[in-house]
């Protein structure tokens, strides 16, 4: 089996499995005052400190969540509610249309149900958001509740310069949230140095477990809770801490951040060979997103493990099915819109037409990827594309 869908989820790291199994064998509620509780709390707080250090944050800025979707919902809705309550003029949310649905659907919900007004950011053809586009959309900022721009796009790998974007937002007094779910472990992510006010990350994209993540939230950031209850996480998030999951999240994050310098150049080289090999065999295959060697603010301008291509005259889901039948697992986009094939909203936002958006395929490499995986794709891609072309696009 060739697994090239690390952007959907990553195989769990052996060290994570060991650490979680050990913690699962213990018990204790981190909110309890007795010895069992004290032990659980100690493990959870050690994890918070280690996670904060790996991401350039302070421990008090780490809120454990149930994953990326919760982090995005909490940041977007929580900042909107808090800032609009403080000043009723702040109805606007400034957001990239290429965001993950966890952000898109949150702002659309606020627009439909809670009097928000969404301003969509201009997207570069590469998928990137520029500080100029953000500045144009923010205006003088007095009517803006919050802005949200993802660090690296989950579909086409486009990286934006969050340091510059945060400075742009702060210049008009607007807080900035970033969905860094794909960035952590693949790009240098330093919360404090970047200056963003809130950052979403999740465990299962970095070799950790599903269902656990963190929202990094500056101490001065205003955020109204979504979940009310025991107030465990700075009174912004309630719920008994899942200590074993938090341990897993932390070990995975610390390991992937620590190994990043070694792993990502290796992934980029594999990815480059994959794309070159595909284009050699299917000359009209078109790379989506930034160029492979793109550089932004001294770092990679594209996720090193991301390859996203359109194959004219095909349907992405036909390609996916034919590759699946040959033991190769990849994706047509984000898994949330999988099931029913829809043209990628990211490609549409970046200005692609619907045919190009429907004929695309994403290969995402990660810590288990090898040369053999690339070889497996290159061995079958030409006949698969040819067969998918014969099946056509299903439309007249």
């Amino acid at each position: 089996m060739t697994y090239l869908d690390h952007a959907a989820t990553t195989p769990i790291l052996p060290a994570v499995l060991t650490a979680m199994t050990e913690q699962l064998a213990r018990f204790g509620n981190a909110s309890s005052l007795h010895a069992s509780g004290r032990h659980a709390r100690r493990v959870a707080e050690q994890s918070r400190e280690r996670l904060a250090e790996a991401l350039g944050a302070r421990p008090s800025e780490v809120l454990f969540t149930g994953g990326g979707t919760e982090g995005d919902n909490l940041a977007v809705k929580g900042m909107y509610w808090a800032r609009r309550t403080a000043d009723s003029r702040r109805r606007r949310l400034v957001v990239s249309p290429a965001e993950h649905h966890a952000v898109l659907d949150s702002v659309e919900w606020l627009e439909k149900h809670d009097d928000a007004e969404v301003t969509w950011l201009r997207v570069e053809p590469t998928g990137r958001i520029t500080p100029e586009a953000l500045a144009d959309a923010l205006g003088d900022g007095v009517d803006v509740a919050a802005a949200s721009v993802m660090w690296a796009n989950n579909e086409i790998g486009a990286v934006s310069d969050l340091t510059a974007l945060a400075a742009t937002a702060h210049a008009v007094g607007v807080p900035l949230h970033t969905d860094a779910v794909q960035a952590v472990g693949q790009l240098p992510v330093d919360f404090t140095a970047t200056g963003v006010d809130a950052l979403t990350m999740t465990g299962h994209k970095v070799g950790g477990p599903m269902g656990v993540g963190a929202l990094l939230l500056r101490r001065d950031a205003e955020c109204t809770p979504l979940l009310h209850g025991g107030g465990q996480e700075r009174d912004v998030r309630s719920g008994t801490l899942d200590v074993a999951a938090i341990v897993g999240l932390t070990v995975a994050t610390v390991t992937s951040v620590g190994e990043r310098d070694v792993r990502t150049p290796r992934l980029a080289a594999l990815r480059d060979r994959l794309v070159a090999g595909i284009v050699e065999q299917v000359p009209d295959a078109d790379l989506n997103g930034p160029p492979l060697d793109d550089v932004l603010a001294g770092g990679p301008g594209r996720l090193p493990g991301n390859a996203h291509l359109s194959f004219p005259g095909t349907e992405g889901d036909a390609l996916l099915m034919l590759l699946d039948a040959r033991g190769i697992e990849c994706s047509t986009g984000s898994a949330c819109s999988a099931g029913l094939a829809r043209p990628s909203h990211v490609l549409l936002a970046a200005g692609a037409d619907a045919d190009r958006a429907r004929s695309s395929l994403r290969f995402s490499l990660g810590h288990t990827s090898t040369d053999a995986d690339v070889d497996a794709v290159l061995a079958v891609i030409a006949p698969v594309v040819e067969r998918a072309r014969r099946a056509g696009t299903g439309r007249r």
Partner: protein
Amino acid sequence: MRVIAAMSGGVDSAVAAALAVGAGHEVTGVHLALSPDRQTLRSGARGCCSVEDANDARRVADELGIPFYVWDLADRFREDVVDDFVAEYAAGRTPNPCLRCNEKIKFSALLDRARALGFDAVVTGHHARLADGELRRSVDAAKDQSYVLGVLTADQLAGALFPLGSMTKDRVREIAAERGYAVATKPDSHDICFIPDGDTRGFLARRLGAAPGPVVDAATGRTVGEHAGTHGFTIGQRRGLGIEVGDQRPRFVLGIEPVTRTVTVGTAEQAGIDEVVTAAPTWGGAEPELPFLAQVQLRAHGAAVPCEVSATEDGGLRLALSDRQRGVAPGQSAVLYAPDAERGDRVLGQGAVLRAGERQPSIHS
């Protein structure tokens, strides 16, 4: 064989897929997304196109350990089935959308795509027997669906598998229950899948708008009522006519004239016909030599009637019925069967009904 199992989320297609796996085929499950605005949950016992139905299908596919995909054929379905349905009613005819879906979607758009992707056939949960290229009625007469498959050509049948034709619906549910499928007790779908509330007249009124006109009684020549649109009527209809005729005899719809928006009603005697003329036929096998004797079924749940089949001058069929019939509506399919009590009546082919009326005296009689 490598086959695509069309899985609606219902019990029939679930068991059909399971039987195909059991027969040793390499099966891939596909759920067709046919509605542009899919509901999250199924409403009532109708519909087959909600996300819940797709999830029911996926659940069975996962149990079978087969790949499962959702294919979006909503555009094709809208053009070939829904728009056609509305246009047929607008023209005063009575279409059968299930037949159209089999002809244009399941055994055309889906089968063509399956073949192009390297599959040999499409397996569905239809209740009909198919062996050696011959399509026959199901052993379960009450559930037989050969009528809505009667439009399939030999080439389409060559790419079809109907594993359920030799068992009853009760047996299908038993198999599903034995395998522990949650869909074992799922209600049968009824009516028209793209009209989930079952209100066909309301659906057509929304699409076609109000177009009032007179209801004329052929027995007296008098105008006996007003209607809101000819699309609310079908030939042979007796109930819901909203008329006052002044005598005790029931009235039936005899004719629908969309241009003058006139609906003609008449007595049972006037509603009877013994000759049907169809458009150019399709054949499920070799084209038979005309004329010949056969049985014809003139609507989805009607009984078969003996008839003599001959050619019309312009390539259609003329069906001389042995018994007078009511309610033969233009737009419906006249499906021809060769009776066979042992192996099941065999479908020969079909033609779309153009008109029905009194047989002209022929030189033979």
